[in-house]
């Protein structure tokens, strides 16, 4: 299932132990020869750029020539609270958390239905569910712009039917925090069902039958067996939405207005043409990266711990 399925294997599936190297190896391609190119590609175009951002964040590299030297000034001002950035970060976290939670709650029953209802067409239905995720991101955002605007589909439909007068459109629909959250939820919903589906689909139905033999009701079986066993998928799904949305800037810049302005927009603006401040922008970017790196590490640990318990 493309990007979705593949991304999933990263977190949900155990990284399979590599096959032991064949002992009677003749002209085998050596590991360094295989890994040289991909690893150096990421070293040059991923690690080095991040190091440069770090250099900018402590003023070792600067945009405008002039006296400069190593300083943590921009870092200090981020944490001192004298700048609005932490507040904006908190707002973005809050928006992303809400979107992730809602989307996971909606996706869970979808995944449950596909995995456990015994429908024969589950892979076809799964593909139908996920297909929109694989189409253009911008176009799906564009669709909502057309739908939600003051002259958009919803409002003109309301005028047309006389439910609302043209002088008073529902203007909170577009260019608001609501619009950003709706569109982000819409964009990520299909994808989120996937990790939950995988954990439920691989669930041993015998466990549910055992629960039922022991006189557990369906609800009890769900709460005591299914839900705990699908927890890794749920957490993965949650993070799969949370991680990309917390640094989001495209959707808020298209449908957010001022109310939906997010942390990612702030970073972009600091590197923009108006009043560039690469030092502060680098600090904000690295801070975001650090938070997400920590979250990812904690999550991978959580999965490992879960596997260890099962084993």
């Amino acid at each position: 299932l493309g990007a979705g399925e593949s991304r999933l294997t990263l977190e949900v599936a155990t990284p399979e132990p590599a096959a032991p190297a064949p002992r009677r190896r003749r002209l085998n391609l050596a590991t360094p020869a295989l890994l040289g190119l991909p690893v150096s590609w990421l070293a040059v175009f991923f690690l080095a750029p991040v190091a440069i951002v770090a250099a900018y964040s402590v003023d070792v590299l600067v945009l405008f020539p002039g006296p400069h030297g190593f300083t943590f000034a921009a870092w200090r001002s981020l944490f001192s609270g004298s700048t609005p950035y932490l507040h904006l970060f908190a707002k973005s976290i809050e928006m992303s958390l809400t979107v992730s939670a809602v989307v996971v709650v909606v996706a869970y029953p979808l995944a449950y239905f596909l995995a456990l209802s015994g429908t024969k067409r589950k892979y076809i239905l799964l593909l139908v569910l996920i297909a929109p995720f694989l189409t253009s991101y911008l176009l799906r955002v564009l669709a909502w712009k057309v739908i939600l605007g003051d002259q958009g589909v919803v409002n003109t439909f309301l005028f047309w039917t006389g439910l609302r007068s043209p002088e008073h459109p529902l203007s909170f629909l577009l260019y608001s925090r609501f619009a950003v959250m709706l569109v982000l939820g819409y964009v990520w919903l299909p994808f989120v069902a996937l990790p939950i589906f995988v954990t439920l689909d691989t669930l041993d139905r015998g466990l549910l039958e055992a629960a039922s033999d022991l006189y557990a009701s369906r609800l009890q079986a769900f709460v005591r067996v299914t839900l705990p066993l699908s927890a890794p998928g749920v957490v993965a799904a949650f993070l799969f939405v949370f991680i990309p949305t917390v640094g989001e800037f495209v959707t808020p810049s298209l449908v957010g207005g001022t109310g939906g302005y997010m942390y990612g927009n702030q970073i972009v603006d600091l590197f923009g043409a108006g009043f560039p401040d690469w030092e502060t922008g680098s600090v904000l970017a690295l801070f975001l990266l650090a938070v997400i790196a920590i979250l990812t590490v904690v999550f991978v640990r959580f999965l490992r711990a879960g596997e260890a318990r099962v084993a």
Partner: protein
Amino acid sequence: MDVALSRNGRRIMRVFFAIVIVFLYAPIAVLLVFSFNRSPVPVFPLTGFTLRWYRDFLTNTEIRGALETSAIVAALASVGSVALGVLAAIALTRHRFRGQLGVTALLLSPLVIPLVVLGISLLLLFHELGIQPSILAVTIGEIVIVLPYTILVIMPRLQQIDASLAEAAQDLGAGPLTTFRRVTLPLILPAVVSAYLIAFTTSFDEYAVASFLVGSRQTFPVYLYSALRFPSRLPQVIAVAVVVLLVTLVVIVAIELWRRRAEARLEAA
């Protein structure tokens, strides 16, 4: 008795599933409807059927140029990332080496990096190196983004096939390149094609990182984004959007079905 769902539960969930599918496809349908609407603004009521917007975009050189640029970027980025991805996937599945965990983490890390951070990082790198924003810069960034996808699509397939087949070929005197070309590649081909198309469609469509790195030649998503600010261009943009969207949808579904069938056939053989 079904242990997972009661009859009513199943019915309710089927309805819920249908509602969500409608919610997911309705906005796409709205774009489709308005792309045939005569009025230049996308508002109700509909004013009549026209193909004008489709004709307009076919003659619009700006749009065609942007589509071409994106096609070039996607073609280069997908070939590059699949080549790197095959190398990395073989190393990670067939070899065991020191620091494997760290290398795996590095190779997959672009999956979780916020695109805004990757975009500005590359912007600063190219700024330091004195490289102008260009198609090449965009392509480099896209390869970073899609490389983990290609690895993750190819790796499970490599794990499925029997490593002893490649060993047998080498025992019979085939060199590593011959072994790859004659044994490994044919077996993993469905996954490689699948990875290639994922890489192609993803990099064709990618806006966030590209927006920091494009030069004078805009890619399609960058053009689309800028066109969204001019209401007069909206109908044409919607028309081209619909075409691109339907093409990707058809390609993705077709390839996925083909991959399943091809892998099943390889299993049977």
